C-alpha cells in the first residue's frame, strides 16, 4: 500500500479498489472461496443451517482486549454457534470513512483474519464501500455467518423449562466497561479488558457431551439482565437468579459502582448463558471450566414457573427484587 489514508477512489470499483482488495483483504482473509473473486461464493453446505448477521459500529475501534475487526468475527461466530451449529463461513461488508489511516484498516483486517482462523471459519465473500468523511464514524463492519447445526434439537430461547439450571460461562460486564472506560478516558485501579472471543469450540464440546441443552445465548448488548428477560419472555417462565453467585470481577464491580452503572446490564462479547436440565449442570460446568474461555463458569440460578416472563433476583440477604429489562441505555448518574 502506498496510500497513507483511505481515499474515495478505493471504493470506486476501479483499479484502486482492486489494489485494496488484493493487497489487503486477500492478504489477511484469503482462502479458496474468497480468492476466486467471483460475484458470489459457491458453498457446499448440508443439513439444517444457522445464519446470523450483525453490524459492528463500536467506538473506539481499538480497545483493551480487542478491536472492531476481531469483534466482527467473534460476535457473529458466537451468534451462529448459539443455535447448536458449527460456524463455517462468514461474509463481511465494510463501510469505511474516507481518510481512515490505512495502517488502522490493515490492523483491523489482520485481526479479523486471525480471529477467523482461530474460530475455524472462512470469509467467503465481502464488500467494501468508502464514503465521504463525516458520513460514517471511521469504519462499520457487517458480518453474516453460516454454520451447520449438529444437534437434533437446536437450543432456543423458547425452550427454558421449570427445573432447568441457569449457568454463565464467566464474569459479566468486562467488555461493556472496557469500551466505556476507553471511550471516556477513564482509568481504574486494575485495567478492565474486553472478553471478546469466539466461543464455538467450547460450545461444540459442550453440545457433543450434552445434547439436551435447552438455551444458549450470548449476553451481548443489554447484558445478562436483558438476555434473561428475553428468555423468560420467550419461554413464559421465571428466571430466578442468585445475586451472590453471579461472577463479576472486582474491578468491574468497582468501576460500575463509581459510574452508577450495573454490570448485569453491560455487554459481554466472550461469554454465554446456558440453560439445561439441572441434572446436567455439574457436567456442563466441568466442561466449561476446563476451557480458558469458561474458567469462571458458575451456576447462577434456576428456571421456575412462579412468575412467568419475569426475572427475579435473590440478594445475598435473602431478599427478592425484580431484575427488569433496561429502558434505553444506561447513563451515568448525577451523584
Amino acid at each position: 500500500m502506498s496510500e497513507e489514508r483511505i481515499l474515495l477512489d478505493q471504493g470506486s470499483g476501479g483499479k484502486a479498489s482492486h489494489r485494496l482488495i488484493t493487497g489487503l483483504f486477500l492478504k489477511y482473509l484469503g482462502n479458496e472461496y474468497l480468492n476466486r473473486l467471483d460475484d458470489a461464493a459457491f458453498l457446499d453446505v448440508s443439513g439444517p443451517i444457522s445464519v446470523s448477521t450483525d453490524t459492528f459500529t463500536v467506538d473506539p475501534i481499538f480497545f483493551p482486549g480487542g478491536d472492531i475487526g476481531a469483534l466482527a468475527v467473534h460476535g457473529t461466530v458466537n451468534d451462529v454457534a448459539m443455535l447448536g451449529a458449527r460456524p463455517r463461513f462468514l461474509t463481511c461488508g465494510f463501510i469505511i470513512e474516507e481518510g481512515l489511516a490505512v495502517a488502522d484498516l490493515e490492523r483491523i483486517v489482520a485481526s479479523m483474519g486471525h480471529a477467523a482462523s482461530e474460530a475455524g471459519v472462512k470469509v467467503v465473500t465481502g464488500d467494501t464501500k468508502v464514503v465521504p468523511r463525516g458520513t460514517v464514524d471511521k469504519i462499520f463492519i457487517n458480518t453474516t455467518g453460516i454454520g451447520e447445526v449438529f444437534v437434533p434439537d437446536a437450543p432456543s430461547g423458547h425452550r427454558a423449562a421449570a427445573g432447568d439450571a441457569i449457568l454463565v460461562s464467566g464474569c459479566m460486564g468486562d467488555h461493556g466497561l472496557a469500551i466505556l472506560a476507553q471511550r471516556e478516558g477513564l482509568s481504574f485501579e486494575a485495567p478492565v479488558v474486553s472478553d471478546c472471543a469466539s466461543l464455538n469450540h467450547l460450545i461444540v464440546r459442550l453440545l457433543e457431551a450434552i445434547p439436551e441443552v435447552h438455551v444458549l445465548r450470548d449476553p451481548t448488548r443489554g447484558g445478562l439482565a436483558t438476555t434473561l428477560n428475553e428468555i423468560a419472555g420467550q419461554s413464559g417462565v421465571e428466571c430466578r437468579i442468585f445475586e451472590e453467585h453471579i461472577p463479576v470481577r472486582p474491578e468491574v464491580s468497582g468501576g460500575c459502582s463509581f459510574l452508577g452503572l450495573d454490570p448485569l446490564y453491560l455487554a459481554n462479547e466472550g461469554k454465554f448463558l446456558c440453560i439445561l436440565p439441572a441434572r446436567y449442570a455439574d457436567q456442563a460446568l466441568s466442561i466449561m471450566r476446563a476451557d480458558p474461555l469458561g474458567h469462571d463458569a458458575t451456576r447462577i440460578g434456576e428456571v421456575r414457573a412462579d412468575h412467568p416472563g419475569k426475572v427475579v433476583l435473590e440478594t445475598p440477604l435473602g431478599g427478592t427484587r425484580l431484575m427488569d429489562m433496561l429502558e434505553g441505555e444506561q447513563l451515568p448518574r448525577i451523584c
Partner: protein
Amino acid sequence: MNLFDGFKDPQLCRAVLEQIHAELDGELRFMEVCGTHTVSIFRSGVRSLLSDKIVHLSGPGCPVCVTHDSEVAAFLDLAEKNVIIATFGDLMRVPGPDKRTLKMAQAAGARVKVVYSPFDALKIAQDNPGDKVVFLGVGFETTAPAIAATMRVAREQGLANFSVLGFHKLVPPALEALAGDPELKVQAFLLPGHVSAIIGVRPYLFLAEKYGIPAVVGGFEPLDILQALHLFVTMRREGRAEVVNAYTRVVSDAGNTTALAVMDEVFAPTDALWRGIGLIPGSGLAIRDEYADHDAMRIFDLTLKDVPEIKGCRCGDVLKGKIGPNQCPLFGTACTPASPVGPCMVSTEGSCAAYYKYSV
C-alpha cells in the same frame, strides 16, 4: 475482603434485622432523603425483608426528580440555541412540560454531550473555543462544589465560552419544609450520606431539637441502612430524638470545609422551586455576581416560565411521603419508564422508577 464487604455481610445483616423486628414497638414510618438510598434499599432486597410495620417512604432526594418543570423547560430551550450542552446522563430522558427531552433534542440536531464530571465539560469548552458550552448544573450539595470549582478554573483561565445553567438545591431547607408540614407522617429521617459528606451533621440538628424527629446519617450498604433503622427503633423505645452520624467513615460533623468554601465562593443561597413541592425559601443556589460571566441564565438572558402542572401527577405527594409511588393514579399506566410523566419515573434514582423496576 475490601472495606465494603463487611457492610454487606448477610449474616450480620440478618442479625440486625432480627433485632429490629424483635424491638419494634409499633409502626415505624421512615423516609430516606437520598436517591442512592432509595435504590440501595430496593437493590439489596432490604425492602422485601422488612416487616409490614416498617413503612418505607422515599423523600425529595433525587436531584432529577425535584428539578422543576420550568427549569427542565429552560434547559430544553437552551439546547435549541446554537450551543453545546454538557450534562450528566440522568437528565437526558427527563420530559419537559411538552414531553420534549434532551434525547429528542439531540436526535433533532442539538449538540448535547453526556459527561461524567463537570471538568469534562470544561475540557469541551477548552477544545471548542468557537462554541459556547453550557453545563447543566443540577444536583444537591454533593455536586455543587465540583461545579463551583470548574467555574473558578474557567474564570482563572479566562474561558469565556464556558457557563453553567445552575439549578442546585439544598437539602436542609427542604427537610425543614417537610418537618414543618402539619400533615407530615414521617417518624424518622435517613439522612443522605453523600450530601452529609459535604455539609456535615450540624445543619440537620434542628430536626431533633425543633421537631423532635430522630434522624440518622447513613451509608449506602445494606448494613448501614439496617443500622439506621435499628437506631430509630432504639431511640423511640428510649424516648429520645437525636441526630446521629452513623456514617463516620465518610462524614465528619463539620463536613468538607474545602468543598464548602468553594461552593460559598461561587454560589449564594436563594429561593428555589421544587417539583411537586413548590417554592422553598433559601433552598437553592444562585451564581454570585462575581461569576456572572459564567452564568448561563444571564449570558443567554433566560427566565423561568410558568408551566402548567400535569393533571393527575402526584409527584409532590410522593416526594413528601404522603403517598407511595404506586398510589399515584398514573403509576404504571400513563406513567412508566418508557413513557414517564414525571422525573420520579425517569430518573434511575427516582422513587417511582425504583418501585416500578424492582417490585416483583
